[in-house]
């Protein structure tokens, strides 16, 4: 038990060192990537620019065709995850392999593997679809295409591409269109998806308002008027990200053409940013811990908190800039002090202090604990769509005042009235007793003298 524990520490240390040595690594994890594709649908040559782009950024690819390289399609060796990233191109077959089932995909995803799923109206295999459904992404079924009759008026091919201005990107952490002065239009051709209300979804691009998703008969290439619309207008999404609680990311795009050399010119920047986000080259922040203590610096261990103590809470946040950790700056980080309900919700101030050049110190400044004893949670729950999640919590008891910690009676001015009355009664009583004794001496002296006489 002990041995395995220490060895696991060694492994962690080793991987940490490895991380340090890979100074040119772009993501926070290595970039061993498996690409699964269907050679009946996808010719890798069509995507050479896309792959070249990634390889330039030291991605390490393993390509596996669903038909020919079944032995290569393995996500796990024993319990060990083989790849850090997974890219799935559209796949035509109904089932993929025993290695890629919805459950396995989900397990891989929960184990920290990042996934980029690309589907198309021709290639939407069941495992991928079911996996996406679990995340709350419902891509349109096979042969359903995103159609925009306004954009493609008069076009013979109903399923021809649509354009979406890149400025309509919904999440600035995935793609920050503010830097983009050129009015780039993304060219998109493929499916769209419905989304449910899963709070971990990161919608990136909506379908155009004038679009509709309907079935197109594969043989006649005519819109099947009887088919039910899968999405209408901006109800549909074409690029969707997802980040789970373990900070693994998955992106879905309903178009393989989007990555192709054909559209690469217009789409390349967006694609690059999307891949960067998916494989955690960007939008990654982490906490280097937190600290709370009395305002005068004593820690909780030295002096447990009691009600109405002045304390300070600090939090250290870093951001991955693609190369190293740098301080993360933001003005919307909040701290909560709660016991069932929040007693405080304070916006943390990013101070100018920076620790080791890698993290910003956020602080609440001095604040008073509530006048209520109990077991409180010191919580920072920073979950912004597009950024990795940060949840730091610490449960600490805030005790009541001990019986010696109240004000003494004479320190309370209101009590002076009572104190005066108490002491005046006591002193008057003493005077009274003294008077009684003095006045009674004469009467008691008689029997004393009598007894003396009898003796």
């Amino acid at each position, binding site marked *: 038990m002990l041995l395995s524990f220490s060895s696991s520490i060694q492994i962690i240390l080793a991987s940490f060192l490895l991380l340090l040595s890979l100074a040119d690594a772009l993501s926070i994890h290595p970039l061993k990537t498996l690409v699964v594709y269907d050679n009946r649908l996808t010719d890798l040559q069509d995507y050479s620019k896309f792959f070249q782009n990634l390889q330039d950024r030291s991605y390490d690819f393993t390509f596996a065709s669903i038909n020919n390289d079944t032995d290569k399609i393995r996500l796990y060796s024993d319990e060990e995850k083989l790849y850090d990233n997974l890219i799935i191109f559209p796949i035509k077959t109904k089932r993929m392999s025993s290695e890629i089932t919805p459950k396995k995909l989900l397990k891989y995803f929960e184990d920290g593997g990042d996934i980029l799923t690309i589907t198309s109206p021709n290639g939407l295999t069941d495992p991928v679809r079911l996996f996406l459904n*679990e995340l709350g992404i419902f891509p349109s079924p096979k042969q359903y295409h995103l159609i925009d009759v306004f954009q493609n008026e008069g076009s013979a091919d109903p399923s021809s591409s649509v354009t979406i201005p890149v400025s309509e990107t919904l999440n600035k952490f995935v793609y920050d269109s503010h830097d983009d002065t050129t009015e780039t239009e993304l060219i998109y051709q493929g499916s769209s998806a*419905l989304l*449910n209300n899963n709070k971990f979804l990161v919608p990136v691009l909506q379908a155009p308002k004038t679009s509709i998703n309907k079935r197109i008969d594969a043989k006649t290439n005519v819109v099947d008027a009887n088919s039910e619309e899968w999405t209408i207008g901006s109800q549909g999404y074409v690029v969707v990200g997802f980040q789970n609680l373990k900070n693994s990311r998955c992106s879905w795009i309903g178009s393989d053409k989007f990555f192709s050399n054909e559209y690469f010119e217009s789409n390349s920047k967006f694609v690059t940013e999307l891949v960067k986000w998916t494989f955690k080259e960007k939008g990654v922040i982490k906490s280097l811990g937190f600290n709370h203590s009395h305002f005068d610096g004593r820690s909780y261990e030295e002096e447990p908190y009691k009600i109405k103590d002045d304390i300070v809470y600090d939090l250290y946040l870093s951001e991955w800039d693609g190369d190293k950790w740098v301080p993360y700056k933001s003005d919307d980080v909040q701290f909560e002090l709660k016991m069932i309900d929040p007693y405080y919700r304070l916006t943390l101030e990013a101070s100018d202090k920076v620790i080791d050049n890698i993290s910003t110190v956020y602080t609440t400044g001095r604040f008073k604990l509530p006048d209520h004893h109990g*077991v409180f949670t010191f919580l920072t729950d920073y979950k912004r769509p597009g950024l990795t999640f940060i949840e730091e919590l610490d449960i600490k008891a805030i005790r009541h005042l*001990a*019986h010696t910690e109240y004000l003494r009676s004479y320190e309370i001015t209101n009590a002076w009235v009572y104190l005066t009355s108490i002491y005046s009664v006591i002193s008057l009583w003493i005077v009274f007793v003294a008077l009684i004794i003095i006045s009674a001496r004469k009467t008691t002296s008689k029997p004393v003298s009598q007894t003396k006489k009898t003796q």
Partner: protein
Amino acid sequence: MATVSSPSPCCTSQQLLLGIKAFLKLVIFICIIGAATSNRLFSVIRFESIIHEFDPWFNFRATKYLVANGFHKFLNWFDDKTWYPLGRVTGGTLYPGLMTTSGLVWHIFNNYLGLPIDIRNICVLFAPAFSGITALATYLFTKQVYHNDEIAAFLSAAFIAIAPGYISRSVAGSYDNEAIAITLLMTSFYLWIKAMKTGSIAFGTFAALSYFYMVSAWGGYVFITNLIPFHVFLLILMGRYNHKLYSAYCTWFSIGTLASMQIPFVGFLPIRSNDHMSALGVFGLLQFVMIADHIKSKISSAHFKIFITSSILILIGIGILGVVGLTYLGLIAPWTGRFYSLWDTSYAKIHIPIIASVSEHQPTAWSSFFFDTQFLIWLFPVGVFLLFTELRDEHVFVIAYSVLCSYFAGVMVRLMLTLTPIICVCAAITISKLFHVYLDFRDSVIKNKTDRLIKTVTNLIVSSVFLSYLIFFVYHCTWVTSNAYSSPSVVLLSGQTNQDGSPVYIDDFREAYYWLRSNTAEDSKVASWWDYGYQIGGMADRTTLVDNNTWNNTHIAIVGRAMSSPEAKAYEIYKELDVDYVLVVFGGLLGYSGDDINKFLWMIRISEGIWPEEIQERKFFTENGQYRVDEFATDTMKNSLMYKLSYHNFPELFSAGNMPAVDRVRGATIRSQDVGNLDYFEEAFTSENWMVRIYKLKDLDPEGRNLKDVADFERTGAAQKKIVKKPRLEPRLL
């Protein structure tokens, strides 16, 4: 029995007789204390040296804290392991008398006598040791009350030593406030009678100090607070006011009240709560009577009559107005709920189900009285009658005690405990009186030898018959103690024996608590019904949500609400409270009737009191108004968390043998289709006899799905949906 000595002419022989008498007394005392102690050791012999039941576990835990941290820290103890997340200001909400006493005993043994004794053993043997002192105090009390009658005194001491009514709360291991409280009760009463008879300020002070000790040990001190003023009040009504009474009561009241206010838990109650108002009122009345008495000696009787009637009327008016006004203004707290339930017997049922739910607060059936006191119970009224024939001041006290307390004991089973001492005293008086008549062999006027013989024979017959009843009583007490009151209820006897003849124990509780202690994170929070709160805290050392200190109805109702809600809702409630594990007690496999399904109705009732729109007792009953758990149970019942947690996998246990899964407590067959899937909880531990079942709350799904969907996905993941249908989704909220 003490022999009646005849006057002897010789001085030395008289001294010898006195010496023999003293020696005999000592021997009798040693015997009584020995009987008291040894009778209470059945549980230790049969089981082991273990703390019993529920509340004692808290007392034990508090004592350990006291011994480890000292008195000052104990007094200011903020316990963050109970009532999560509220915590409990334990030092300010307990009666510290018990803990400090045993802490002191421990201290003396360890630091002065050099006997390193484990604090647990002190706690276990605390009650038997104090029962010996109770016998002593009862001896003194009876002697004081009844003409220094040694026979009555010794008899009452012997009775209280072995009466089951007292043993029920003072066997070894039942380390509860009552263990010390009865001792203090009798001591306080003894000192009060002494003070009242002598008018001595010293004894008044001792009575007050004893009262203070009692206040520090048990909430039942209110009984003394009301009984002594009542006694005084009766005496005044009977026109028996005297200066002795005045000085005794005033000393007792002023010192006792001031002292009792030093207990943090009591605080300002003595001047604010209506429970204490009678003592204050009688104090005022006594001043008035004293002044009136003084004036009476100064002025003529005709004037005095006018004076007295007018001032009485005025005073009563002011008093009533004052109490009503102060209560209305909120300056004096209204009577506490438990107090109400004593008088208005249906009050608790409607307003405070939490009090009604406690089995100790149930009314007492006649058989319990007989069980607890056997033939003392019918000697008891005779004793009261005998006291009436003389009706001295101190007899009034015993009569008032008897009448009031027999009412209280009838309303609440737990108050049987306070009734038992006075039953013993009165019965002892009866028997003593009987023996005085029939064991009197002194020379009588009868000359005839045969007549004398007949008389002696009669005396012998009567005495021996009653002696045999006394022996029968001893048998009864021993049997009751060993069979009914010596189970720790933490460990149970199965009633079967191993091959070597040793009994088979059912040790599920400790097994489960030990599992919790060794397999869960140290800061885990365990939710259970409040009965098990103290045990989890004491044995498993884990944080609990609610426990047997039922001061916060809402918090208890939250737990009840979770238990009576469907799984998803319960999960939500528990997650809000950071719960990690849920513990239920299930007796269906073994036939243990004190399990959670049987307590479930109280959980529903208590939470219905706060969320009447969400939890409705009616919905747990079938159309015919039956409380069922089999296939006819209502859906609400079947979907409730308690049902699911109790019966999870229960039918499957029997399915291998193709037997019906019969719940042996309720005699109901449980079908597997009625016990739904458990999606939000997973079984973490089930004890050997399934009595304790512990479930872990599953983690939140990393993908943010609800756990039912996750479970559905896990179950049907293999069978993939063939047809792709457009999902029906809620409009997306952006």
